[in-house]
């Protein structure tokens, strides 16, 4: 039977086992077991969850020298999802950080058996991802490019080569495949046990059959946990409870929202084939058929991600124990059909079992990692989206680094718990969203994909008006934002058909919006921005902000300052615009998805002073961006106030009236480098102001525009966006924003030392703009982000964002250039000469396009009225 997977892996903890567990499934053997070791009264870290994730966190904490760690597991080690998981270690991932985690996991597992003496069943079989369509092949080629530059062997092969690698496969409907020879199979339970064994040797205490009932929190800090076997005081708590993480998050003194939801997941086990499959046969992933197939004891193990997933445990844990989940053959039928189509010879193979093993999924298909924004010392690592084995090792390492060092060694923002807020915590939302996410595991990942479920949660008061005018929407942090407006009478392709790696159907629509921004005036609803107000009775606000932000905020009232919110290493934690409303109050605008992260960052660092207040006013203001040379005309007609550059220079903020509405905060910034204004309008005036602007703007040719136009504008102007181009590992020095750092502002600020050092020694990467030279917009694949950059034929970095510039009539890619030593691979200082003296190529799905590198934007694109140092170099959206 299947449990044999476990039989040779008897976990023998150093401590004697506790007996008499009411929920123990094998009570006969339990009766003979000695009583469990008593729980310690205190520990530095309590890790909850004994799956591969929890074991990995404990293992890495111990490796980093934190020995005072307790790992609690409610049942047996590796008995939950981990026991049932298919054990495939696959590095073929789309997101760079996920790829790094999977690569690290693979290398870790490979040497684990040697390190611990525990058999892990590690077998380097390789994996083959099949493409039934050309689009799928493009998607695989993109992954292959990423893998290759990371030094992971990988090649695109023909169907014939697939047949040579795998004896059973039917190749008639294939157009190609990707072969990753280093991918591996493991016994997932054994890997967890090996990690636990190693951790336990390093001093980690492991207690099975101990469930955490309550997390104790005082003054926003973890102080301990209550278990069914007593209380443990601790400084850190790590929630690795997998699909129970959501519930565990809500069982503390303060709720910690961990948005994940479980879905049933099925896979099939068969008896061995007549001629048993060799154990070295590669794993097959057939995303178009939604299945994966690996060899399993001479037979096969095959599962998949169906189109109609079955979410469960929506109302929390219930009587349905994992063991009692039923096989649902009718549900598995499409996957079985796909399997038999892929391997017709399996018809005669005898079924052993259909395993139903729930997996947890997150709202955006990426795992959840990091510290709670509200409770310090409360860490989370969960929601592995059915890739727990692939990510477990790497994710555990990053989280352990985060806890020990205060930050992980890589940019993990895409996985950070703080990318979510409580708004993603509704069970209904999660239930609906995971039903969309699980099929997406196998769906084609095309640029600019939008989730269809859980929409229209946060909307601007203008939503209906804009929608009626043909707006097409995307969503960021639950907020609906316009992509572009479909003109009346014009129809776009339906959703599925519009998926493309090539020129999209909205190309001309966005082009005309961009043209209008350049020549007349456009209005973009940008209400999703995160807006904080920080004020104090005395100078506390200014002093605190001066310390937390790198630019000089001691500017005259009415000025707007673009500044980074840096960490100790000088990296961007946030990139924002701050308007000084009065001597003692500041209005801060940050990217949409900063709402949770920025709030937590500031809350943790602002002095605990009742005279200093910070308020989230995001919901109070609707933001309209008037972009274009005629914006000034529209606004002056509506306000009867002089708005000429003399009266209203760039980077100013004034409260004024627009139409009948008074108290509108008007700022002379547009986040694109184009002339224009941002209007921050108290929401009850939003419709009025919008109507006034549209009516008055008519004679100036005003029209609505969306974020796609905005993106094209900002990228051709070389504006970096936080979250897309900028992250916690990028400093202002590395992206040409030295002018936003005032090292001599007369007081210390966070990151100052690191920046000073960089200023003296130079930077190791440099944000660069690339203009694609021989790229045919109509015929060639479009760049997206994450494309490798080659300098003189050598890999130097990756792009971070790209857009078609309607002005240059070229594609523009933004990205970072590194300087790796040709022999040692060591990172060297990147100089301006190094950038300028190179021939560049951008690799789009294996095809290289020549690119011209630029460190500064085209000056001719700018309006001449502005002084160069006043030119704003900031923006916030992340596509």
């Amino acid at each position: 039977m299947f449990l044999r997977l476990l039989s040779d892996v008897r976990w023998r903890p150093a401590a004697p086992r506790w007996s008499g567990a009411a929920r123990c499934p094998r009570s006969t053997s339990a009766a003979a077991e000695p009583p469990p070791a008593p729980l310690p009264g205190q520990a530095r870290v309590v890790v909850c969850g004994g799956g591969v994730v929890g074991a990995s966190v404990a293992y890495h904490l111990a490796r980093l020298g934190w020995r005072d760690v307790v790992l609690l597991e409610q049942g047996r080690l590796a008995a939950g999802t981990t026991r049932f998981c298919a054990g495939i270690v696959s590095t073929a991932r789309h997101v760079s950080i996920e790829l790094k985690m999977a690569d690290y996991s693979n290398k870790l597992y490979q040497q684990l058996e040697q390190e611990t003496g525990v058999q892990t069943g590690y077998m380097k079989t390789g994996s083959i991802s099949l493409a039934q369509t050309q689009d799928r092949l493009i998607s695989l080629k993109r992954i292959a490019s990423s893998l290759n530059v990371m030094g992971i062997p990988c090649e695109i092969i023909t169907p014939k080569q697939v047949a040579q690698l795998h004896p059973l496969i039917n190749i008639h409907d294939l157009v190609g495949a990707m072969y990753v020879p280093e991918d591996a199979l493991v016994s997932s339970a054994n890997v967890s046990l090996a990690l636990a064994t190693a951790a336990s040797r390093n001093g980690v205490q492991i207690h099975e059959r101990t469930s955490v009932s309550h997390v104790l929190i005082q003054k926003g800090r973890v102080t301990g946990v209550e278990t069914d076997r007593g209380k443990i005081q601790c400084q850190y708590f790590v929630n690795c409870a997998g699909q129970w993480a959501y519930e565990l998050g809500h069982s503390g003194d303060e709720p910690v929202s961990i948005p994940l939801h479980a879905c049933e997941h099925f896979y099939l086990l068969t008896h061995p084939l007549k001629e048993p499959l060799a154990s070295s046969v590669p794993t097959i992933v057939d995303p178009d058929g939604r299945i994966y197939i690996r060899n399993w004891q001479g037979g096969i193990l095959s599962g998949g991600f169906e189109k109609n997933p079955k979410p469960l445990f929506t109302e929390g844990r219930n009587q349905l124990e994992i063991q009692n989940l039923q096989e649902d053959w009718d549900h598995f039928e499409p996957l079985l059909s796909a399997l038999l189509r892929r391997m017709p010879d399996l018809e005669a193979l005898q079924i052993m079992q259909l395993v139903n093993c729930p997996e947890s999924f997150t709202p955006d298909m990426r795992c959840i990692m990091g510290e709670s924004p509200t409770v310090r010392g409360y860490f989370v690592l969960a929601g592995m989206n059915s890739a727990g084995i692939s990510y477990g090792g790497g994710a555990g390492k990053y989280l352990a680094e985060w806890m020990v060092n205060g930050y992980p060694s890589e940019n993990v923002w895409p996985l950070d718990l703080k990318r979510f807020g409580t708004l993603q915590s509704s069970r209904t939302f999660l239930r609906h969203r995971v039903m969309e996410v699980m099929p997406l595991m196998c769906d084609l990942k095309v640029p600019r994909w939008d989730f269809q479920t859980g929409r229209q949660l946060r909307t601007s008061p203008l939503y209906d008006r804009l929608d009626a005018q043909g707006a097409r929407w995307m969503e960021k942090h639950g907020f609906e934002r316009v992509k572009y407006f479909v003109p009346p009478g014009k129809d776009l392709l339906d959703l599925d058909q519009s998926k493309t790696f090539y020129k999209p159907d909205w190309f001309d629509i966005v082009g005309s919006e961009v043209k209008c921004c350049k020549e007349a005036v456009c209005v973009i609803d940008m209400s999703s921005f995160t807006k904080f107000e920080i004020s104090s009775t005395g100078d506390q606000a200014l002093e605190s902000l001066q310390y937390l932000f790198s630019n000089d905020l001691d500017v005259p009232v009415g000025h707007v300052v673009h500044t980074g919110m840096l960490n100790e290493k000088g990296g961007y934690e946030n990139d924002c615009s701050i308007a000084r409303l009065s001597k003692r109050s500041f209005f801060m605008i940050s990217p949409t998805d900063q709402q949770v992260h920025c709030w937590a960052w500031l809350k943790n660092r602002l002095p605990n002073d009742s005279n200093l207040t910070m308020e989230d006013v995001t919901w109070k203001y609707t933001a309209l961006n008037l972009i274009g040379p005629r914006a000034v005309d529209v606004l002056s007609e509506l306000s009867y106030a002089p708005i000429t550059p003399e009266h209203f220079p760039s980077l100013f903020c004034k409260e004024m009236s627009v139409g009948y509405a008074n108290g509108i905060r008007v700022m002379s910034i547009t986040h694109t480098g184009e002339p224009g204004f941002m209007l921050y309008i108290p929401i009850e005036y939003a419709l009025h102001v919008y109507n006034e602007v549209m009516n008055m703007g008519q004679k100036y040719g005003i029209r609505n525009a969306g974020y796609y136009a905005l993106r094209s504008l900002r990228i051709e102007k070389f504006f970096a966006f936080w979250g897309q181009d900028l992250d916690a590992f990028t400093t202002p020095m590395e992206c040409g924003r030295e002018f936003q750092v005032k090292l001599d502002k007369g007081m210390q600020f966070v990151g100052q030392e690191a920046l000073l050092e960089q200023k003296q020694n130079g930077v190791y990467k440099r944000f660069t703009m690339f203009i694609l030279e021989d790229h045919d917009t109509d015929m060639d694949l479009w760049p997206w982000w994450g494309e490798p950059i080659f300098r003189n034929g050598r890999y130097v970095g990756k792009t971070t964002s790209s857009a078609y510039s309607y002005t240059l009539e070229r594609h523009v890619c933004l990205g970072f250039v590194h300087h790796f030593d040709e022999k040692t691979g060591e990172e060297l200082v990147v100089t301006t000469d190094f950038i300028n003296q190179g021939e560049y190529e951008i690799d789009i799905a294996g095809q290289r396009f020549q690119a011209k590198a630029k460190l500064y934007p085209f000056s001719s694109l700018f309006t001449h009225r502005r002084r160069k140092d006043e030119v704003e170099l900031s923006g916030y959206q992340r596509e």
Partner: protein
Amino acid sequence: MELHCLSGLLSLPYCYLSGCKSYRIYAELLAIPVRSSRLPLLSDAMPAPTHLFPLIRNCEISRICSTVCYCHHKHLCCFSSHFAHGHFRYAPQKRFAALYRPKENFNHFIHARDYASTPQRFYLTPPQVNSILKANEYSFKVPEFDGKNVSSVLGFDSNQLPANAPIEDRRSAATCLQTRGMLLGVFDGHAGCACAQAVSERLFYYIAVSLLPHETLLEIENAVESGRALLPILQWHKHPNDYFSKEASKLYFNSLRTYWQELIDLNSGETTDVKEALINAFKRLDNDISLEAQVGDPNSFLNYLVLRVAFSGATACVAHVDGVDLHVANTGDSRAMLGVQEEDGSWSAVNLSYDHNAQNEREVERVKTEHPKSEEKSLVKQDRLLGLLMPFRAFGDVKFKWSIELQKRVVESGPDQLNDNEYTKFIPPNYHTPPYLTAEPEVIHHKLRPQDKFLVLATDGLWETMHRQDVARIVGEYLTGVHHQQPIAVGGYKVTLGQMHGLLTERRARISSVFEDQNAATHLIRHAVGNNEFGTVDHERLSKMLSLPEELARMYRDDITIIVVQFNSHVIGACQNEEL
């Protein structure tokens, strides 16, 4: 060639049949069982058509096709009027085995169609099939008050699928406003749709009036007398395709008024018994139809209309639901069936009507006792009344009710159109002691129980293709959304992937058809028309059946009209407890 010889041998009347024969060959090619057809006027002379077949089967197929199509064309043109006015009643017969593989059949069929003048698409896509099936569907949900539905009826789904052009079936549904209760009925017309149409418009008013208490009748009469607004009697629940004839409304109203005036005069002072009211209403309406035809109308359009109503016929199956009291009044061979859910969740069917046809021995007995012994042999022939009519009770059909003299007088004084019609002039053979036919219904009363989940009223188009047990199961599973397919467990059995795959594919086909329908009646029609030998809906078959040209459809299926009434078990349970 062969067919020409055959028709020559078999004398002229067989030309009618050879037209049918051609359809039968289509059927062979389509691999669809053809309904055996009999022309009532020629039934004596008709041999069993199957005998002809072995001859044809041996022939070269292409030659048959061309010959057949030639015949088909010719006869259909010549005799179409007879087809339209003749009275057909078909009984299901053993289906013919398909001789050819479907693919070949299809090619031949296409080939054959090349000769026909109306090119048509033969494979309908699932959406096209759905749009045909759903064209006439109608759903009604009893409105809730204060978040509660206090009625014993949750609502009903109805639908009809035409085979005749125009369809001869009718349906009606209405809520009685002056008394409690809901009326639902299906009406199957024959020899045209005029009678069914009239009955569907008028019968419920007659029933409602019969049920009204004396005071209400007086009130209504006074209102009419003084020209005040009338209390509404019925609230109709109609599909847009269910029309009422505007021209006849005045005439119909006057007849109805005469009826209630008589009821007022007769005031018995007793509370109205539903069963009696139903019987009276049926009989009275049929009587009025007959009288209106005899009296005639100065308006020539109306005059022709009342004659067409009287000379055509219609069966009726009407349900009256009031709380836990369910009455079904049936005249003819439509049928009412109760769907009962057993304790183990399975479904069973309870008949709430008796068919009035030759298969019902009691009914044959009844007819025989009503006529002299000398007529015993001629009364029922070929399972038909006087060898002609399949239902033994019906509205209209004055040819089986009036004396020969009356028929002749009315036809002669009637409009030319009537005189030109062979059918109306034709007097049934052995017509000695009319009336042979009555519209009096049999009424069955049933006290609803919580396990009674739904009622199906349907014309014989449904019942001749499906067994009531299957109807109960299909509707029951549809309404509860539960499919009593045991989940498959491999357990210790030796099952291969291929075997499992086959099993799952079949189960899937069975389930998937449910989700396409939002209407129980539509779902039932889908099964009735599309079921294959495994009891699952076969899209290919469904597509073929629905793409038959108008003139052929009638050969493969009858009009189907279905009403599915869903009961409110909670209310019924509560009522029951009160009574206990």
